[in-house]
């Protein structure tokens, strides 16, 4: 039923297609500029913002350095509060847990709070294969689901859709899965939101099982935290009898008090607000209030691989605010689909290779999807040095190809350069041909390299020749 990122081409090819889409570029430019401005305004209000960033990074680092102890403590705290804890090595194991819970309760539908991790594991498809409908309740996810589309942004996944398209999707599809869109539906955002409210309300009120993710999981107290705006989270977390929360193992926070910097960093970085409308926290089961059967699935799915990478480990600090997407000049021009993953943009360019390792051409292309301008590092509330990790990952891709039988052109160029620089005599010989080589290069070009770069004009004589001729006299220009 839903589209999939599987089989997307490597970034350069995907980007070329996106660049040609002027409507998309227009939407993205408007959207990212708007969010950037909102974020800048509320961040400027906070005098201690830089110290807050340092504190946020320190909290996440503290967890990651001690993750096994933190996970054990989280499990103990959750169990003490009446939750059932499951561990899942990969997507298949996590999906199986959710399906099993649904089966045991005989449900044929679940309501879902927006959760990137459940998209990462393809939960909706796994449930659909078992005849269980998974209703997305976040407005943008609803638009993506009804449109049989793919999300293009972490925070506003339907940003690539304009209001006219959304109206069309609602009119065509709502009636097929529930309460139809009202007659005379306009494309005014308030009217569209009201239609979504009507359409989803009946599902909220009758659903017996919900699936969520979590923004944070506090080890000391077994508390899960969900940050949202619309209220669909609150609906899913409190009305059904059964709740399953899928949580990446990197979401742990050691103590309740250490949630502080993160709760202050996230809303201003993501939606440019002082605080988002609704934040829900719960610790296991509360008798007489909310779901009486609570499950938590702790998911690895490549996070331990990222954890083992000394430089890449910092990517696991990510709190999914999407500030990096909004400042990235590359993302602004191509949008999220070109990255071929539920995690697009700068964070996606490092997270996907770290979670999956090298070897897949599409994933290997992601660290190169950047001009290394560093704007993402400046914007990141937990100070992930994305450019540092990008360069590190590029070296891993090169290393992975070092022993290819057919070397890439870049590898050939590097080896030739290494040969030439290996001996003074070789370099002198190579220098003699610089003028000729560059001249030819400028004429015939090496198309993929020179299509966006100019080869410089070769100097009349090499430095060595000039030195020999003038005996190093600075008054004679080369």
């Amino acid at each position, binding site marked *: 039923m839903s589209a999939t990122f599987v089989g997307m081409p490597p970034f350069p090819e995907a980007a070329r297609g996106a660049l040609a889409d002027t409507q998309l570029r227009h939407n993205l430019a408007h*959207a990212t500029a708007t969010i950037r401005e909102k974020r800048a305004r509320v961040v400027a209000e906070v005098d201690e913002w830089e110290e807050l960033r340092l504190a946020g990074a320190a909290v996440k680092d503290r967890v990651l350095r001690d993750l096994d102890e933190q996970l054990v403590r989280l499990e103990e705290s959750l169990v003490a509060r009446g939750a059932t804890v499951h561990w899942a090595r990969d997507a298949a194991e996590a999906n199986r847990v959710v399906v099993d819970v649904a089966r045991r309760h005989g449900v044929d539908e679940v309501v879902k709070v927006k959760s990137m991790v459940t998209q990462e594991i393809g939960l909706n498809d796994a449930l659909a294969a078992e005849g269980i409908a998974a209703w997305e309740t976040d407005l943008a996810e609803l638009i993506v689901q009804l449109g049989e589309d793919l999300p293009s942004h972490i925070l506003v996944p339907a940003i690539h859709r304009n209001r006219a398209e959304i109206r069309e999707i609602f009119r065509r599809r709502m009636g097929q899965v529930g309460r139809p869109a009202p007659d005379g539906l306009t494309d005014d955002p308030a009217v569209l*939101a009201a239609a979504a409210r009507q359409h989803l309300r009946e599902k909220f009120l009758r659903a017996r099982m919900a699936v969520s993710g979590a923004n944070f999981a506090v080890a000391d107290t077994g508390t899960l935290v969900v940050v949202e705006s619309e209220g669909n989270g*609150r609906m899913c977390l409190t009305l059904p009898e059964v709740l399953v929360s899928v949580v990446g193992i990197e979401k742990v926070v050691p103590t309740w008090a250490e*949630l502080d910097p993160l709760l202050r960093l996230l809303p201003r970085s993501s939606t440019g607000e002082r605080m988002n409308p609704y934040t*829900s926290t719960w610790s296991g089961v509360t008798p007489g209030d909310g779901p009486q059967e609570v499950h938590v699935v702790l998911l690895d799915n490549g996070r331990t691989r990222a954890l083992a990478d000394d430089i890449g480990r910092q990517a696991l600090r990510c709190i999914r605010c999407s500030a990096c997407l909004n400042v990235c000049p590359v993302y602004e021009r191509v949008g999220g689909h070109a990255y071929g993953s539920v995690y697009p943009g700068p964070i996606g360019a490092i997270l996907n290779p770290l979670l999956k390792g090298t070897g897949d051409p599409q994933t290997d292309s992601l660290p190169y999807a950047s001009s290394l301008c560093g704007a993402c590092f400046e914007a990141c509330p937990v100070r992930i040095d994305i450019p540092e990790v990008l360069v590190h990952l590029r070296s891993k891709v090169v290393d992975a190809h070092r022993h290819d039988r057919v070397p890439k052109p870049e590898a050939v160029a590097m080896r030739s350069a290494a040969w030439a620089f290996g001996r003074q005599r070789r370099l002198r010989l190579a220098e003699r041909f610089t003028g000729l080589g560059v001249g030819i290069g400028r004429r015939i070009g090496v198309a993929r390299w020179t299509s966006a770069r100019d080869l410089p004009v070769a100097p009349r004589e090499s430095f060595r020749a000039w030195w020999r001729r003038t005996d190093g006299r600075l008054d004679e220009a080369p």
Partner: protein
Amino acid sequence: MSARDDILGRVRTALASVQPDPVPVASPRAAPSGDLVDLFAERVADYRATVVHCPADGVEVAVAAALPAGARVVVPPALPAGLVAGLDVVVDEGLSATELDRVDAVVTGCRVAIAETGTIVLDHEPDQGRRAITLVPDRHVCIVRADQVVADVPDALAVLDPSRPLTWISGPSATSDIELDRVEGVHGPRALHVIVVDAPI
């Protein structure tokens, strides 16, 4: 090997050469400026909630004024009955979601309010009621006492009990998912009415 052992084993291997840091991180604090209650009222109003002030003996009048005539109101079991005297009231003793959907408004207290961010936090004790009753009805009238207002997030965390379910509310429900146009009122209450009681200290 169980998934648990496998994952924990991989974590330990990944961190074999890494030293843990047992010292909790302290966050920076800004000194609060000016009157906290005024700041709170201003910041909540920024979210397009309705904010009114009243003296300790004026709460009942303020509550009635916050509700449309003839509104059917659900209240938590421990809300003082005097605050909603004369209104069409049903006390929540386990109303179903469908029954809650037919109610027009809910009146509650709160646990703490945060001035810097204009946030109200409910811990769903009996004076605030279980979570569903502040979620399903379309109008939420929340009574905040002046002595419940703290400066910023860390102060609230210090006061709140994480073993309780908590709901942090900063304005009515909203979304910016459609072309980034902010629209109020999606699934949570579309109207948030805050009554700030200037209680004597």
